[in-house]
């Protein structure tokens, strides 16, 4: 047992937190790629979706239309989709304002049930049919029932094994992303770009619904009922031991806005309309200081600008004309920080990154690899921007832009970014050593506070 454990520096904890976010995103993307490559490999497939969903209500693409027609139709579809998502997001804000959180939570559980039960069941059936797996209906029913119910509980209950909750959120993201890859090709691409733009607007504009939602939640110090993936927080050795670590702390002000916990559980359900707005708010490595501040009850004033976590709002509603399984799911994504500095990433991010990569999987695997690197680079860039600006930023635009450009074979851009990213990670090792001194100063100051209290 070491007597003098080496302190964990800012960059070490930051690196670990980034890894804890990048890993589930990668797992989700990988599973969608596998699903897509097993179940449908044709790039132009999905044009004959048997169900009229919200995303194709304006125009159903068929392969015989001209390029211009397809583009117009895709634009129309995306506009309708974004409009519906905006409306539902404002509805969510209204409901949250009227304190109908119980209703929202039940709705979340219901949409998780639909996604896991119906979507999961159908995809499992497709896989069984593909491989002619000799499983009988009783076993299948029991397994599906178990899987669904435990998933609903994981989403519903706040105190469940973290690993189980995280796994189920990734599975939900994967299922919805696979469903989105079934949309017609042009609609998918234009929809991705439209959602990225909506994300920008909803998060950064003062009247944006997501910004309103987060400000409401922060002023009331409540959790937003939305589906958000929360990475396991990095527990520092030097932090206060004993006592249960609080998962959420709201902070105002721009200086110590690091510990913003947006524990939003969003329901992401099947829907053609989804408005992702992702915010990233990362407080790098100042969680120790913030914990001290929180214990002292000190709220740093000064800058009254609220650092709002990235939230992506996804409203998914499937209106099928043939079978009435409507599911309205509000998917709220956001990247924020818990009270111990954990990064939270909204489920819409998972979904749209996976949709991009899943679409790429319909072409060939080099495209998949390139898009994956572009998305991870975009995520890293967004995290860095978040660290610099310390306010909510939309996480979709950068990744979608890079990924789409990759698709159009602008390989030089992502190569440059990748080099930049590698350079940063190598240089961070040198920065780490020079930060030792600052770290020690911070710790001794915290201990001074502790003694005073």
């Amino acid at each position, binding site marked *: 047992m070491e007597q003098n454990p080496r302190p964990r520096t800012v960059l070490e904890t930051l690196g670990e937190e980034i890894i804890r976010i990048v890993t589930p995103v990668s797992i989700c993307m990988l599973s969608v790629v596998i699903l897509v490559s097993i179940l449908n490999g044709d790039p132009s497939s999905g044009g004959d979706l048997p169900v009229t969903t919200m995303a194709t209500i304006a125009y159903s693409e068929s392969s015989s239309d001209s390029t211009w027609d397809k583009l117009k139709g895709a634009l129309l579809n995306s506009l309708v989709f974004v409009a519906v998502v905006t409306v539902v997001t404002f509805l969510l804000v209204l409901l949250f304002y009227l304190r109908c959180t119980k209703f929202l939570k039940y709705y979340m559980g219901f949409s998780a049930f639909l996604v896991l039960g119906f979507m999961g069941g159908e995809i499992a059936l497709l896989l069984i049919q593909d491989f002619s797996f000799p*499983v009988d209906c009783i076993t299948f029913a029991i397994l599906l*029932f178990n899987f669904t119910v435990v998933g609903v509980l994981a989403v519903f209950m706040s105190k469940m094994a973290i690993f189980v909750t995280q796994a189920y959120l990734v599975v939900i993201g994967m299922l919805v992303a696979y469903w989105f890859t079934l949309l017609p090709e042009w609609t998918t691409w234009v929809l991705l770009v439209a959602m990225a733009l909506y994300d920008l607007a909803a998060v950064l504009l003062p009247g944006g619904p997501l910004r309103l939602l987060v400000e409401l939640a922060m002023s009331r110090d409540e959790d937003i009922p939305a589906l958000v993936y929360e990475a396991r927080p990095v527990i520092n050795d030097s932090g206060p031991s004993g006592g249960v670590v609080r998962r959420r702390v709201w902070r105002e002000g721009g200086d110590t806005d690091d510990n913003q916990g947006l524990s939003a559980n969003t329901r992401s359900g099947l829907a053609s309309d989804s408005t992702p707005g992702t915010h990233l708010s990362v407080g790098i490595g100042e969680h120790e200081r913030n914990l001290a501040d929180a214990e002292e009850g000190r709220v740093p004033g000064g800058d009254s600008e609220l650092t709002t976590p990235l939230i992506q709002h996804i409203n998914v509603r499937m209106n099928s004309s043939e079978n009435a399984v409507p599911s309205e799911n509000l998917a709220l994504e956001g990247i924020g920080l818990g009270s111990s500095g954990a990064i939270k990433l909204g489920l819409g991010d998972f979904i749209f990154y996976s949709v991009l990569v899943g679409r790429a999987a319909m072409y060939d695997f080099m495209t998949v690899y390139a898009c994956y690197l572009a998305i991870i680079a975009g995520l890293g860039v967004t995290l860095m921007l978040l660290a610099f600006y310390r306010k909510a930023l939309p996480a979709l635009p950068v990744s979608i832009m890079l990924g789409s450009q990759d698709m159009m074979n602008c390989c030089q851009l992502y190569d440059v970014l990748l080099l930049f990213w590698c350079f940063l990670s190598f240089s961070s090792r040198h920065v780490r050593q020079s930060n030792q001194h600052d770290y020690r100063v911070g710790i001794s100051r915290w201990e001074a506070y502790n003694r005073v209290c």
Partner: protein
Amino acid sequence: MDNESGTDRYPSPAAARVLPTAATSDETSSSRRRLGRAEWPTVDGPLGLSHDDSLEHARRFFKLGFLCLPFLWAVNCFYFWPVLRHPNSHDSHPDLRRYLVGSAIGFLLFAAILSSWALTFAIGGEHLFGHVWNELVMYNVAEKYGLTGWI
């Protein structure tokens, strides 16, 4: 020693002196480990439930598992794994361990029954069941009722 050297985390020859604060904390943690005490009842550690809440949680999951939900029992055992691992823990309620052992037994029993049935069905095939096999197997059931037509 004073606190200043206590915060000195660079290993140096001068730090060979045993510092009182560091030593006592080391002793307590290692002694706890030797006694096999589970400091935290859940596998999440400080992020999970406290000892008081975990009894209620374990009881609820145990009872819900009887609704043909053995996966809940499995999750229960996974979540409270430290309590299962350290049987002579003095911190946790004695009932907690009873619920966990019950969940573990229930899950293993159910898994044994279900897997034996599934394996018999898969391996036996039509030789064993006759044409009932074709009616029970999932892909035929899905085709008969058109279950995959929703996507």
